[in-house]
């Protein structure tokens, strides 16, 4: 088997674990962590293609992952701030009970 395929299989497993967690858990922090794992799986794919693929530019994969890491940091900060705001209104962070948009 190609080493590229092995790397893609690893990231596919990581993505599936993240998706399962985001769908199965009812705690919003755990859902956010599942989404973070899915983002990490996408980054693994970028690096795998950069390392083993026929790449035209030597820096493209690394630059892509750096921007993606910045987006992931912004997403984590905003998501956890939303969790704290929801907790302040509802006094708990279960997703099922955060169904009102009006504060």
């Amino acid at each position, binding site marked *: 088997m190609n080493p590229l395929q092995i790397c893609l299989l690893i990231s596919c497993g990581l993505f599936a674990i993240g998706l399962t967690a985001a769908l199965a858990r009812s705690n919003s922090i755990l859902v956010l962590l599942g989404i973070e794992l899915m983002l990490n799986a996408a980054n693994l794919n970028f690096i795998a293609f950069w390392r083993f693929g026929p790449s035209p530019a030597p820096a493209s994969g*690394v630059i892509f992952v*750096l921007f993606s*890491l*910045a987006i992931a940091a912004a997403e984590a900060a905003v998501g*956890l701030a939303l969790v704290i*705001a929801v907790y302040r209104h509802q006094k708990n962070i279960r997703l099922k009970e955060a169904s009102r948009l009006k504060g």
Partner: protein
Amino acid sequence: MLSLSLIAALILTSAAVALSLRNLIHSALVLIVTWLGVSAFYLWAGAEFVGFAQILLYVGAISMVVLFAVLLTRRSMDEARVQPSSLRRVIAAVLAGGALAGVLAGAVLSTRFLPGAGRPPEINVRQIGLQLMGPHAASLLLVGVLLTVALIGATVIASSFERDDVSSDPDPRARSRGRLPSNSGDSHV
């Protein structure tokens, strides 16, 4: 290849364990191991700068933010334990995740990839900096603007704008209990 399989086992098992634990603090701490495994994969693949950026960002910063969020959103010591989700939901989620993993693995295994270069592409920090400041300067500026807006927005969302009548109440739990019946409108019962 042995180190790759060790890294893969570390990433996948720690991710699965972290997201199935009951205690939120434990899962946040086990996820640090997952992120360390991902950065070990980057180092194995020859992307040193990305690996150390991953350690700084995830292991250093995001895990701390997650721990702060866990600690700020609970009322007593044992409330970090979350109640289990319903069995139907867990089964449906596992089926969806398994089906997606099957489809993706089938697509990966049945695709013929072009043979790549045997050696890792030569890249060092100087070249990354030149690339970021040269051809990707506009994207770098946009990412800076995005991070500024996101962090200011996160601060605004998470900061509290308490009303005067609420903040004069000394006990926060009494006021949350006292406000709920008046909202649901059953005070005349």
